[in-house]
């Protein structure tokens, strides 16, 4: 895949700004007491940031099916390690 397809600096600056805003949001949310949802909020914001980085900075949105497969399949393994560990900790 060739780089810089149509995307100028503008897109990168915008994504960078979005990442900064989301970092601010992470800090902000930590001051609000949401109980267990604090963790969920922090993880959600972090996932959005990771998605932005993968799509724009790592050019995933320009890639073909094979690269998308290799990008998405590890999420299954992430779910597996979390699920497997929870099968222990939840039922102790």
């Amino acid at each position, binding site marked *: 895949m060739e780089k810089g397809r149509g995307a100028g600096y503008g897109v990168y600056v915008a994504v960078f700004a979005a990442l900064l805003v989301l970092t601010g949001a992470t800090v902000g949310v930590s001051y609000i007491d949401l109980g267990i949802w604090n963790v969920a909020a922090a993880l959600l914001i972090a996932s959005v940031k990771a998605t932005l980085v993968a799509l724009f900075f790592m050019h995933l949105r320009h890639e073909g099916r094979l690269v998308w497969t290799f990008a998405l*399949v590890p999420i299954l393994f992430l779910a*597996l*390690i979390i699920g*497997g*560990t929870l*099968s*222990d900790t939840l*039922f102790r």
Partner: protein
Amino acid sequence: MTENTADGTMLSGGGRSRGYLEEKGFRSWALTLDHKRIGALYLYTTLFFFLLGGIFALLIRIKLMYPGQEIFSNHTYNVLFTLHGSVMIFLFIIPAIPSGLGNFFIPLLIGARDVAFPRLNLASYWIFVAGILVILGSLLRPMDTGWTFYTPYSAKTAANVTLLSFGIFLVGMSSILTGLNFIVTIHTLRAPGMTWHRLPLFIWGMYATSIIQVVATPVVGITFLLLAMERLFGVGFFDPAKGGDPLLFQHFFWFYSHPVVYVMILPAMGIISEVIPVFSRKPIFGYKAIAYSSLAIAFIGFFVWGHHMFVSGMSKTAGIIFSFLTFFVAVPTAVKVFNWIATMYKGSITFESPMLYSLTFIFLFTFGGLTGMFLGALATNIHLHDTYFIVAHFHYTMVGGTVVGFLAGLHYWFPKMTGRMLSEKMARWGWLLTFIGFNLTFLVQFYLGFKGMPRRWAEYPPQYQSLNIVSTVGSWIMAGGILVMFSNFIRGFFRGDPAPANPWKGLTLEWQTASPPPTENFEEIPVVTDWPYGYAKRKTAGPPPRFFDRGAGDG
């Protein structure tokens, strides 16, 4: 000199070409981008650590001849078994087949000129060396936690855990880069006409292995970072006093370290799948079953790590789930074994050393695999876990399996790699001694384990002594076998008879080029027209089937 010129691989110019080995000098090796040279570097390095780890093993066995501290202190023993495990696993058995033989043979078997990223390949070798240096640096205050690094002991001991785990982190990084390189190579650089179902089975094994390396290795890297943070900054990920959980470490560790045994065994199975048809002169039986069972093992292998933790205090629910899933790794493994044996049925079998090692692989690995059944079942596991039964099972699968498969590969490809033949007589002696010594060493350990002797014990009650002596004597015989084998390698390397391009009459592409191969592998990239296992010889005479054409395209 009689070259096998059936495939026209004689090189122009007088005398014998040394192929990729032609260029001499330190720089030509240290900065080489040739996958064959990098593969050879990996092989030299890993074989050195195989011998080193073997010396540790001999010392362990010598200590265990006596129940007390007669030979050396318990601490020395604890350091030795940690070093034996760490060196053998991280510096020999994980990199040996994938990075050594894999680097050398993946491009040759798929008809490519090199791997996809030659510079990354060189970088991964030097990262590996850096990791080794860090690990050697940790020996100043040697570690005694075992290769499993269980917390909280590893977080508390005064030994150099941080340094050793950082060294393994680097070695793991090299392993990720190599795996990544192989995946891209197999996807993009196959010769024209080489569809997925025409891939040699060694490539299928390597492909499955590479995926495990890329997916699982980062987990152990991060786990070791967490351990380092715990040791350096007192962050209590695994410390119950700070709200952490020691079992979390075990989950993370085994999420990598279980699949990694398939990193070890799958390429070895790939080698066996190449050797058996060549020496049986028969097409491989059940090609697709063998190919897909590699992927199935790699995939299911990720679901079973909890079987290392049945008695660890893990929840019973998790134990039941993991026991159930564990058993289903056995099925694709059994499928492979049955297919290999069916390949031999009505073959025309010869027993040169590669075949001898391959049959030994099937013999020992089947035994090792079946003893795994006792460990997968919950009830028997709570008796046998952490005893010598585990030690014996592990060595039957990893030495009897992976190492024997690796040796099959070394004997099979030695003529191709060096351009020289090994002495068949010495190879047989080496095999015989190794086989006898190995079984003597480890068979008795099953019984020791059943009688309750725990692993990692420096001292033991006297009732276990007699069998330990048997085991130690076995280790000496095995060491003798390995010594003969390595003498054969060295003798063959310098003074072996010149090897023809295709001494075993193999049909895979590496045999269609010179021995040793030229730097660019093939004068012209072959065009593949059939699978590489058309070994059957018809009753009526006729030309042997060819599955490739020469030179219809280049790259």
